[in-house]
């Protein structure tokens, strides 16, 4: 959904710290950022469109962590893994039906589904294309990102918002590996602000509605998983910024 209009180049070795322990920590942080990017990418995909057979097969082949430290994440993974344990040739259709039931609905008012748009949950009359959409659009543009014309939904759909986090995480990992810690810190601040100002401000409400509409453990699990992941990640990013040397993370 996102098109990267920037020409990302290396910034040289400015600011690189020489201590081996610090180098290891930076490498580990880069690896963590890659994993965060992968997680955000998977979540974005699951919200973007229905699960198809190749994705279902890929999900079935994965392992799902337990004891992550967040109850919602653990339960979310458990539900998804349980659904996959009982998946057969009918599951793609079943998941497509549940996707429509959860995110599209069959009613005529704005409470007929868990409409995955930030504007719906942050505007008084639950309408799309409100201030939230304009805000995130400006943020995307500020980072050289635009919506892919092939995707018809608005920019404040949860999928591009998650994908934006994916891009930032990947850029952070890249910056760390190229020794540009200042850039990495700047990107982490953006992630913290985006989580605080946008994702964690409305996704919990979306998750609540998903729980009301979802019939499959898959989408019930996805609701818990995204909620817990965002919560965990917000804590993680805040912690990294605190440890980056600034007292308040600013």
């Amino acid at each position, binding site marked *: 959904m996102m098109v990267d209009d920037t020409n990302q180049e290396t910034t040289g070795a400015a600011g690189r710290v020489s201590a081996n322990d610090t180098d290891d920590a930076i490498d580990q942080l880069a690896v963590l950022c890659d994993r965060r990017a992968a997680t955000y990418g998977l979540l974005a995909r699951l919200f973007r469109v229905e699960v198809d057979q190749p994705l279902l097969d890929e999900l079935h082949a994965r392992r799902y962590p337990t004891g992550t430290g967040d109850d919602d994440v653990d339960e979310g993974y458990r539900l998804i893994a349980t659904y996959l344990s009982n998946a057969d040739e009918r599951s793609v259709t079943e998941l497509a039906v549940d996707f429509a039931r959860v995110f599209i609905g069959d009613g005529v008012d704005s409470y*007929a589904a868990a409409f995955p748009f930030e504007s719906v949950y942050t505007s008084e009359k639950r309408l799309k294309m409100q201030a939230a959409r304009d805000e995130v659009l400006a943020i995307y543009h500020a980072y050289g990102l635009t919506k892919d014309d092939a995707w018809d939904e608005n920019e404040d759909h949860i999928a591009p918002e998650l994908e934006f986090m994916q891009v930032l995480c990947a850029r952070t990992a890249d910056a760390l590996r190229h020794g540009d810690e200042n850039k990495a810190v700047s990107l982490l601040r953006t992630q913290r602000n985006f989580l605080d100002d946008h994702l964690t401000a409305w996704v919990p409400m979306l998750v609540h509605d998903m729980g009301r509409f979802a019939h499959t453990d898959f989408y019930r699990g996805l609701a818990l998983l995204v909620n817990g992941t965002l919560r965990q990640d917000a804590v993680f990013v805040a912690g990294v910024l605190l440890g980056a040397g600034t007292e308040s993370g600013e």
Partner: protein
Amino acid sequence: MGNAKLDRASTEQMAVPPAGAYDKGASAGDAGLDGLAGAADLDDFSQDAFDPLADEGFDPDEDVDFPVADGSNLQLAETKSRLSAQAAAECPENNDRPAAERIQELFREMGKRRRTLLGILDYCRTMRPVLEVADHITELKKYDRSVYSPTDFCSLLQRAGAIERVDADGNHYVEESLEPEVAMVDGVQYLEPRTPAPAYWRTTEDGIAALDADDPVAATRALFEEDGSYLPIYRRVLTMCARPGGATARDLSRAIDGDPLVQSPRLYSSHFVERLNVSEALAWGDRVWVITDAGREALEALADVDDPASDEIAAGIMAGEE
């Protein structure tokens, strides 16, 4: 903000958003449906009395809250959904009827998909893995496009009692609820999804009976008896489709649509083509209609029907063969 624990139990117990100022007890949607159910006859409507542009005192500056936007419909819709699902589960009508009757009804309601349905029944005379059946259906649908997926077709046939889901031993397939397996990898615990036991589709005795009872020749004969006044048209369609390479829809339209026989009542080539398709006298190939074996038998039966256009086409076919 965003820190509340939202497990499934607490989610279900959370209150519906409070009703707004326009909560009328019953939802606006419900009142509307009840109103329509008791509406006057259509004859009572007077078009002249209704002015859609009449000023009803609308104030564009008034801050209006739409009554449906208070969330009360959400709870009501959920209740309705549960009740209707419960009612459907308790309704015995579908499963109590004989399979033969249900199969007949399915073929009647999905007449245009008859060829695909029969193809599935024929393929599953011996039990086949479900994925192989899905692939076969995809192939069957190649020239018979449908919004129904292979899974949908199998589900419909299963519900009608024409096919059954069995295990590797040919016994009724028991759906188990599996839990993921716990695995330790490098000292870290994970959940690994299991794979259910393989399942197979097999045509039931009622399904085989329906398959064996399929008689395209008799069906086409019945069609001709019913549509006797259009026999020259049917002969022309079959003759054109018997040509090498079949006939395109455009060719058939040019040959049929201007015929005096189809002017009143006004009919088009597609009407006759579709009826022959349903009776399996024709089949859709690669962008052309072609005649089937049953169609050739039917064409022979129409050899004495007077249609100069058909004679000319047949002569052309014979000349081409020579």
